[in-house]
């Protein structure tokens, strides 16, 4: 969701004037936080998830069924419903009335058709807490759904297939390529959430900084009748379209996608570095396993994820920064967009694997090092801080370096990376945290809970068994490329440490013996690697799990294992199959209005549980519950307070 300060957004040229001010004070704010909080220890494991929803309007088509057949229409029509600003106040009412406390919390997201929900309290450290996730997700969905009209559905859909196609939104709106905020040939500005100026401001500023609108080109899936060359006839507003690619030209195409995120609190800054680093090689694995977005702007892509789309959608780099022109007005060549995979590990042991050049603001690096911030963290921040702020509010320009942190958060929250390292906020009891950001969101609460629980269990396994998964960052980036490809689960291999080296601390040996594994081998195990799920089961056998939680975990792990093995399709593969097997599909890679609406109707049924494609979902369900069993919370309380032989020390 990012930083939602109140106030009056500045224009781009005004914002740019304050760029150095924001950076300098942002770093001082960080240094102040760091000093106060770097020695915090014994923070407990708390964690939470964030789920994003798209509001989709599904209506019965007016045409008669014979017309439908003739004109290859569906019995449904589907659009994105631009009502987020209407329902958010109601969604947030409980929180506002109770001083920030509620069982679920809601935030706006980029698009007027999106909302984001998180649990009201973070989950705790017990395995029994894992059994609460799905129930809380169901509650959130029910809450949103109850506020929507009878034709509108809250879907956890990563990408609406016909975003930016004619008549894709309701109320209808026209794109304004000649002016406005996005200047898109396809996406009207009405698509941007208007209840807060942040999103429109970001859109406009990124475009103005860049000097032209964003250009996203995603390779199209080549089928028998797919047009050669440019997919669509060129116009003056689509000059940046590449042949054989799906062209998109607005921030909304990326930031209007939904995803699934998790944040973990570590017990200390060192543990936070360790989690950040060890989750990094797992990011491409989760991206491939959760892939759910093979269709963009009505075209079937040759990729299955949103990653490249969002990367392009917020790419504020100028031609100079991208290396297309010599550097004159800009300071640096920058290799990646603000939205992309991370560029360096943070732990001391991880430094040996940082093998891609890190562009840094040297002055900021010097300040951090002189202030005693660890070199790895200094380098990380000096790299994040090469970016300009792309949104600034007039009331927030002058801030305290010690009491406030908006300038730091400004740059931090507009570096959208695969992992985010989050210092404790000022004036709170929250500790050092790590955010895991790659997973795509699935259609059902069961699946989303399964993926979330899988990652949480992996963090516990990593900390318990103390295995080391680190590999050169360049190889992680290579894995990221592979993870996005069509059917990556079945068709790609990924660099991963082999089992023989899980305790190795000789980077040269590790690099020399890095192997490529299929996702099945990584998740389920093989001769040379024990498998992520077997490792989880080993951890579970050492832990206290209650019977209902174990039943639920078995169901979740079963789903993950089957997806990795290819026994169940990923959501992307299922969507792709739906499109290509649809009676109206012309083998031309087009996801027409008819196909898309039928797909949306099916997604609604799947979400509601009235239809279960058995190639996508298993037939069992979990034993998720709204609350911790009383006996378990009582037992924890008892153990925390019980008298000991010879008394507590």
């Amino acid at each position, binding site marked *: 969701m990012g930083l939602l300060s109140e106030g009056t957004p500045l224009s781009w040229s005004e914002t740019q004037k304050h760029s150095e001010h924001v950076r300098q004070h942002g770093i001082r704010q960080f240094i102040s936080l760091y000093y106060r909080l770097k020695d915090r220890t014994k923070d407990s*494991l708390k964690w939470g998830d964030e789920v994003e929803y798209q509001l989709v309007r599904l209506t019965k088509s007016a045409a008669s069924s014979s017309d439908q057949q003739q004109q290859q229409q569906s019995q449904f029509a589907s659009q994105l419903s631009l009502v987020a600003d209407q329902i958010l106040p109601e969604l947030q009412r409980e929180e506002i009335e109770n001083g920030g406390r509620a069982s679920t919390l809601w935030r706006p997201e980029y698009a007027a058709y999106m909302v984001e929900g998180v649990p009201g309290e973070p989950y705790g450290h017990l395995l029994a807490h894992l059994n609460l996730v799905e129930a809380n997700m169901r509650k959130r969905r029910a809450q949103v759904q109850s506020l929507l009209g009878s034709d509108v559905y809250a879907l956890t859909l990563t990408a609406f297939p016909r975003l930016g196609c004619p008549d894709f939104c309701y109320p209808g709106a026209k794109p304004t390529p000649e002016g406005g905020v996005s200047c898109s040939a396809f996406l009207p500005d009405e698509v941007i959430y208007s209840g807060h100026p942040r999103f429109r401001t970001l859109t406009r500023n990124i475009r103005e900084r860049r000097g032209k609108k964003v250009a996203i080109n995603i390779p199209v899936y080549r089928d028998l009748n797919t047009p050669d060359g440019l997919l669509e006839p060129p116009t003056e507003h689509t000059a940046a379209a590449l042949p054989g690619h799906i062209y998109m030209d607005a921030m909304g195409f990326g930031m209007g996608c939904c995803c699934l995120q998790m944040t973990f609190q570590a017990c200390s800054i060192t543990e936070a570095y360790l989690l950040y680093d060890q989750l990094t090689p797992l990011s491409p694995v989760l991206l491939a396993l959760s892939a759910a977005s093979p269709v963009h702007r009505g075209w079937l892509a040759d990729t299955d994820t949103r990653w490249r789309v969002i990367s392009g959608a917020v790419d504020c780099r100028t031609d100079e920064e991208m290396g297309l022109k010599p550097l004159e007005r800009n300071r640096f060549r920058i290799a990646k967009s603000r939205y992309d995979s991370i560029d360096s590990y943070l732990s001391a042991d991880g430094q040996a694997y940082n093998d891609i050049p890190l562009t840094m603001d040297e002055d900021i690096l010097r300040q951090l090092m002189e202030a005693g911030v660890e070199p790895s963290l200094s380098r990380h921040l000096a790299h994040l801080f090469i970016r300009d702020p792309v949104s600034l509010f007039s009331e927030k320009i002058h801030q305290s370096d010690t009491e406030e942190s908006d300038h730091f958060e400004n740059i931090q929250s507009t570096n959208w990376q695969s992992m985010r390292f989050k210092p404790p906020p000022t004036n709170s009891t929250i500790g050092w945290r790590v955010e895991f950001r790659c997973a795509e969101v699935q259609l059902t609460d069961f699946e989303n809970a399964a993926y979330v629980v899988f990652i949480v269990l992996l963090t516990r396994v990593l*900390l318990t068994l103390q295995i080391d998964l680190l590999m050169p960052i360049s190889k992680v980036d290579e894995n990221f490329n592979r993870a996005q490809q069509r059917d990556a689960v079945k068709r790609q291999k990924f660099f991963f440490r082999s089992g023989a080296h*899980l305790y190795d601390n000789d980077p040269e040996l590790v690099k020399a013996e890095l192997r490529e594994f299929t996702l099945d081998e990584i998740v389920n195990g093989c001769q040379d690697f024990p498998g992520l799920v077997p490792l989880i089961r080993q951890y579970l056998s050492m832990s206290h*799990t209650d*019977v209902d939680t174990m039943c639920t975990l078995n169901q979740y792990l079963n789903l993950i294992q089957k997806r990795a093995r290819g026994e169940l399709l990923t959501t992307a593969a299922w969507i792709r199959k739906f499109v290509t097997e649809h009676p109206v599909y012309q083998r031309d890679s087009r996801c027409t209005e008819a196909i898309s609406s039928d797909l949306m109707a099916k997604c609604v049924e799947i979400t509601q549980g009235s239809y279960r494609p058995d190639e996508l979902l298993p037939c069992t369900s979990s034993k998720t519950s709204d609350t911790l069993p009383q*006996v378990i919370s009582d*037992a924890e309380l*008892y153990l925390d307070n*019980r008298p*000991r032989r010879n008394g507590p020390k």
Partner: protein
Amino acid sequence: MNDIPILPKCRSIVFETGNILNWNRLKKRPLTALPASEEILDSIRCLFNGWLNAQTEQHSLQYTDQLRVTCPVQKQLDMAQRQAMLDDREELRIYIKLTVYIDTYWRGAVSDAVETALASLAAEDCDGVVLSLVSSGPQPPLLDEVKPIWAELEELRAADVVGSLGLADVDSDLLEQLYDWAAEKPSIYQLSAQAACTAPSRLREFASANRLQVLVHSDPADPLPADRLRDIFGGVLGAADATGWQPGWLARITTSYRHRGVVSSWGFVSKVQRQVA
């Protein structure tokens, strides 16, 4: 291999693994997917071999009556954990899963097991002991067989050496009878992880009515079968040392960091015994 026994007078051996999680790190042993039933036996074999190789002379072993076999390699790591135990006991949760062999049970065996387990961690108390019983024959344990064993646990509980008590795998009849009879009731019931989704309703209702936590485990029913023990002794020491060994008890010990869901150590101590002429 020779025909002269190495430990002719030995009647009792305690195997103490220390933290097996450290073994893997130190030996850089790739994590294997040994079935649970094999893991304990394999660890004993490794421990025993390691111990034998570290013996500089074997002559004095001829007179040894009792033996303690520990892991020679990892003392430093374990020392650090022992220090943490002393400094920070409040931050840790210690659980013991105690398997008692009814056939070879003797009065005091439970205390012996718990105290040995705690000593191996440099701890003075633990947060819970879950009792698992192995009967000799196919019939399940009888209440009268369990009573003395449970009575020992009650003493430990009364002295705050043990924070809570539990039972594993007993049938509903025995559970309910024991619950009725015991002064200190179990607060935990453990059943096998495979049965998690199909736990019988009688058990669930009883647990719910009596505030029993129902937890799962993946431990084998009989972790130290006598014949496998004799195979290990035969393999490590020789046929002449293998006869007569019987399992006494096995204490699986898990230590976790409070409020973090991270296991800090896992291992076991075990006593095996035999009669000697």
